[in-house]
């Protein structure tokens, strides 16, 4: 089967077009999301802060002993975990809808389908950079007094973005075939959320359950982020590498499946 010549032929031009498409879609995403909202982009910061407050009020006293008897340490650990989980569940559940939600558009003009999940994740990245990431960098600077840690905060975050991209490809593609997916996906995000040591110390998990938690790719991100932001030590590159590895694997799987399913999308949109 021969390709059509509707779109620019050279790959540089194709790349330029892809970049421009992402740009306008991200722009649409962000400006729609914050139209009329006074809090604007800082909502993404406010919601984990409020949740941290709630967790600290309820679990703080009980779990403080695992955090050197310091409530502040518990607050910081809960916050770093929450921003990761929040980013993951918000960006992937928005990505889930993205291909089907733009079905009418895809029926009218030829567009690379991957722009929809990619632009959703990208919009969330911008949002994250303006709020939580900046705060994490400040925290890392205070605890470590080293610019290396401040910059290194980006490393686990990049791994998180790779994971979200991969999962975003997977769920947005699956949703084309299975329209009841959101119910199941809600369950999955809840399981991931409860199995990541966000508001509890990982020590309390029974030993025979612990191996299962290793399957949760977010655990490695949270561990690496906490090590960089909270410990004050030099960034542990082993943890970063583990986080990156799961990110690269998930992105490859997601991208591969999306490419594989893509030819069937148009019959179902």
């Amino acid at each position, binding site marked *: 089967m021969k390709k059509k010549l509707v779109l620019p032929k050279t790959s540089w031009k194709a790349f330029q077009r892809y970049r421009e498409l992402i740009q306008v879609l991200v722009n649409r995403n962000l400006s*729609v999301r914050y139209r009329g909202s006074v809090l604007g982009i800082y909502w993404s910061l406010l919601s984990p802060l409020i949740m941290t407050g709630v967790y600290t009020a309820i679990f703080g006293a009980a779990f403080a002993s695992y955090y050197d008897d310091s409530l502040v340490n518990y607050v910081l650990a809960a916050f770093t975990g929450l921003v990761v989980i929040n980013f993951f569940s918000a960006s992937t559940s928005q990505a889930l809808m993205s291909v089907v939600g733009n079905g009418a558009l895809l029926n009218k003009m030829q567009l690379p389908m991957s722009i929809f999940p990619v632009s959703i994740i990208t919009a969330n990245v911008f949002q994250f950079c303006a709020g939580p990431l900046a705060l994490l960098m400040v925290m890392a600077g205070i605890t470590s007094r080293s610019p290396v840690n401040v910059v290194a905060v980006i490393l686990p975050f990049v791994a998180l973005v790779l994971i979200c991209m991969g999962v975003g490809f997977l769920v947005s593609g699956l949703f084309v075939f299975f*329209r009841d997916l959101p119910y199941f996906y809600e369950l999955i995000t809840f399981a991931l959320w409860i199995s990541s040591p966000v508001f509890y110390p990982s020590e309390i998990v029974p030993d025979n359950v612990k191996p299962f938690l290793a399957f949760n790719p977010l655990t490695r991100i949270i561990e690496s982020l906490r090590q960089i932001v909270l410990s004050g030590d030099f960034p542990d590159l082993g943890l970063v590498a583990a986080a990156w590895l799961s990110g690269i694997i998930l992105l490859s799987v997601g991208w591969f499946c999306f490419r594989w399913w893509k030819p069937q999308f148009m019959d179902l949109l």
Partner: protein
Amino acid sequence: MEAIRLDQVCLWRRTQEEFSYDLKRTVLSFLEGKYKQPSKKQVIENLNLTITTGDKLGIIGSNGSGKSTLLKLICGVLEPTTGTVRVWGRVAPLIELGAGFDSELSVIDNIILYGVLLGYSKPYMQSRVQDILDFAELGDYGLAPQKSLSSGMTARLGFAIATDVHPDILILDEVLSVGDERFKNKCKQRLEAFWQANATVLVVSHDLEFIRDSCHQAIWLDRGRIRYSGSAAATVQAYLAAVHGGADMGLSTPGQ
């Protein structure tokens, strides 16, 4: 010079009734061993078509005969199952206007979004915004959100964008019912300009008079096949004869 060329194009699509759309049921049917591959139906059958640059081609046929599917193949929205579709030049689809608009965005942002989706660069679209607003007569609405426009205004805007950018190939799918009478005339004038210029135009319409008067060539599609192809007048006549004669609309009657 050729603008569009379809060689032995066949298209199979999943039939609507087979849509399961349901994870629970699919998993259950797998477990019960009742799962079967979704069945497919041939919607375009061995279609050959060549359109030369500057041609104005009308496409007629009853509902479900594959007219819109053919346009989707030419736009690149659908890939043929077998055969090749080749298109030289930039295609602007003008199908059910306004699908690309986001109701929360401002009109100007929507113009840029729509233009970029159609394949134009952002700086180029920014330079065209004023002309598009002027043509759509929405000069005062530039910064207003899209949702504050009426459906007629939205359709006007869609028409203005798709025809402002100068496509090599314009695709019209039942769109001449845009806006009020006065604006309709404006649209017709602009389309006239396309007609005069060297643009290739494909029109799907049930308005047979319009096809006969405005197109050079026409094809009559019937169940995914070309049943008749020739001058617009002859095709319309053949189609009308078949409809009024109550002739079998099936594929057995030789058209040509």
